């Protein structure tokens, strides 16, 4: 698998080395952290001590729109392996814009740790469009660090799924434009388990000792466990989170849990180091191509949705180009190409026809087009208050990081 004749520690490159197939979010783990830690260094520490100005949320499309098409360069910061081949080039041809596309978004919290100081001082962060997960996008919005996305410049916004367009976290998607959505559930190797996995308790089967992984992201990792304990992620409480954390700690201390992972569970699952893993749906569709024994289930007690969103930081150097990009992405034929690559659940409505044109198997795949009964079991985390985020993260990190 990993070919070892490549050099360089660009996270995107390493994530390709570390995997034998292509998918996103793969590299949340240590490598990204290492790269971040090297990159941060003293400036980061010095910045921690600096005074910060809390800006109040403003809608900052200050200059009136002249209606002219966007020109110049667009700098995009996205997750690794989250882009279809040739897509950026096609956009450049269509829009006459130059795109500087970077796969340097590896982890929401780490991205925030790196960029919060420049953003708080309204300094350019080297990106005109970034793709954080919705909870992070909403945090940025609350801090007043996002520009509004113009409806007139993004007419294709109407193609969004109504449930996403009218979501109460950002009605009308004024600040956060969904990019992909996906399911957080369980992936397992049927041949190794010898039986179907259906519920959270199956994770703790002594037969799978040391062959189970959980996601290190707090929401993705704890969400389904909280639901299995009868708690609701739409109304999370510290007690509910703590109860889930306690269970994870108990299982960790037993040696049941092998690793807390980002997307790198996929490699361990493929290599047979893991039998059951908390997983993202799109990854599993990819893995199944090589290993038909792998299966993805939403636990009986429920799993959760994640949504990654395109946002325009208020430090953007090219607002109109970013809007042109979002509009291009929201064109159904274009978007179908993205979905065909990422294998996640489309954020646009009525994608069946366009997906069929690329590959009829896409639209019928229950992981790309989940049936109603799966959807009913999927829940979305409530937008957390700052205090909740801090408390929940700290509680989970006490187990995952120690």
């Amino acid at each position: 698998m990993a070919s070892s004749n490549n050099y360089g520690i660009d996270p995107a490159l390493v994530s390709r080395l570390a995997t034998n197939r292509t998918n996103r979010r793969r590299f949340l783990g240590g490598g990204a952290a290492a790269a971040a830690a090297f990159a941060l260094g003293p400036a980061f520490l010095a910045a921690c001590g600096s005074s910060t100005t809390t800006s109040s949320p403003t809608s900052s499309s200050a200059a009136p729109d002249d209606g002219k098409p966007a020109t110049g360069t667009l700098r995009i910061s996205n997750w690794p392996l989250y882009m279809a081949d040739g897509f950026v080039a096609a956009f450049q041809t269509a829009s006459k814009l130059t795109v500087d596309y970077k796969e340097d978004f590896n982890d929401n919290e780490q991205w925030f740790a790196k960029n919060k100081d420049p953003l708080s001082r309204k300094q350019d962060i080297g990106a005109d469009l970034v793709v954080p997960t919705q909870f992070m996008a909403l945090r940025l919005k609350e801090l007043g660090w996002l520009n509004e996305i113009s409806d007139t410049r993004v007419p294709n916004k109407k193609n969004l799924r109504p449930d996403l367009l009218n979501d109460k976290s950002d009605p009308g998607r004024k600040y956060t434009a969904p990019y992909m959505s996906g399911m957080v559930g369980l992936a397992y190797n049927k041949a190794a388990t010898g039986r179907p996995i259906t519920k959270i308790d199956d994770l703790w089967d002594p037969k799978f000792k040391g062959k189970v992984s959980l996601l290190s992201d707090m929401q993705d990792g704890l969400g389904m466990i909280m639901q299995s304990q009868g708690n609701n992620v739409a109304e999370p409480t510290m007690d509910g989170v703590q109860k889930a954390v306690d269970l994870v700690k108990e299982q960790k201390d037993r040696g049941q849990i092998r690793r807390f992972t980002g997307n790198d569970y996929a490699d361990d699952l493929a290599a047979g180091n893991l039998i059951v893993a908390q997983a993202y749906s799109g990854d599993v569709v990819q893995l199944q191509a090589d290993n038909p024994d792998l299966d993805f289930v939403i636990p009986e007690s429920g799993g959760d949705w994640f949504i990654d969103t395109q946002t325009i930081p208020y430090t953007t150097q090219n607002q109109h180009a970013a809007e042109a990009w979002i509009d291009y992405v929201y064109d159904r034929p274009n978007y179908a190409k993205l979905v065909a690559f990422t294998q996640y659940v489309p954020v646009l409505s009525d994608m069946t026809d366009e997906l069929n044109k690329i590959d009829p198997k896409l639209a019928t795949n229950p992981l790309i087009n989940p049936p109603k009964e799966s959807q009913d079991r999927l829940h979305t985390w409530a937008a957390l208050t700052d205090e909740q985020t801090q408390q929940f993260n700290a509680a989970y990190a006490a187990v995952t990081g120690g």
Partner: protein
Amino acid sequence: MIFPALAYLAIFFVVPFWSLFKTSLSTMGGSIFLPQLTFAWDFSNYGHALVTYQDQILRSLLYAFTATVVSLLISYPLAYVIAFKSGRYKNLLLGLVVLPFFVTFLVRTLAWKTILADDGIVVHTLSAVGVLPPDGRLLSTSWAVIGGLIYNSMTFMILPLFVSLEKIDPRLLEASKDLYSSSFRAFRKVIFPLSIPGVLAGSLLVFIPAMGDFINADYLGSTQTTMIGNVIQKQFLIVKDYPGAAALSFLLMAMILAGVLSYTRALGTEDLV
């Protein structure tokens, strides 16, 4: 003349060091995501860090110590052979020692993941001959982490050892032979004492990075092998408890310093090579 060096030290060592020190004694207030750090001589950060993460601290000490000792035991004979017995292959052998460093650290560590995988050939072979129990594993164990630490740092052990061994005047060995010393005795009384600076330098170059390492524990370890570097990384970047993380960093530094001082004292040398 030394101004550039001093300026470099001031900018890249003293300033961040001071900033980290201040952070470690600060309290955090203000908004959650844009916290205000107030310097307050808050030593409780240290107490808290020490109590909460004593397991990881002890584990890091143990891993780094084991890695250093094993690395020394493996590297010494190799450096000895290269210095005294390799003849015209000396440069070739030295080149081979350095060669793995042409590939980045991360990729080499990831390669070990593949080699040690549960379904890999190494585990199968060891299970077949009964060294490992049937459901045993190598990856995600303490041994894998320590192995990674050793592997990634061996060059730093071999090179200083080689330098100090190569410097030894062969006439000293001849003299010991003339005085009817056995080979072992010559080694014990002449070669080893003269190579102490290399042993010291090599040990420090392995021990210090190993103490703060988190990549090996991350890729080759499990939830039971977390090192202090992993904790610091998580506290800084995920939990964003800057004072706590800074205090842990200082504790780590203090432990390394104490270790280095007692070690140099014990070996009776203040010179590094």
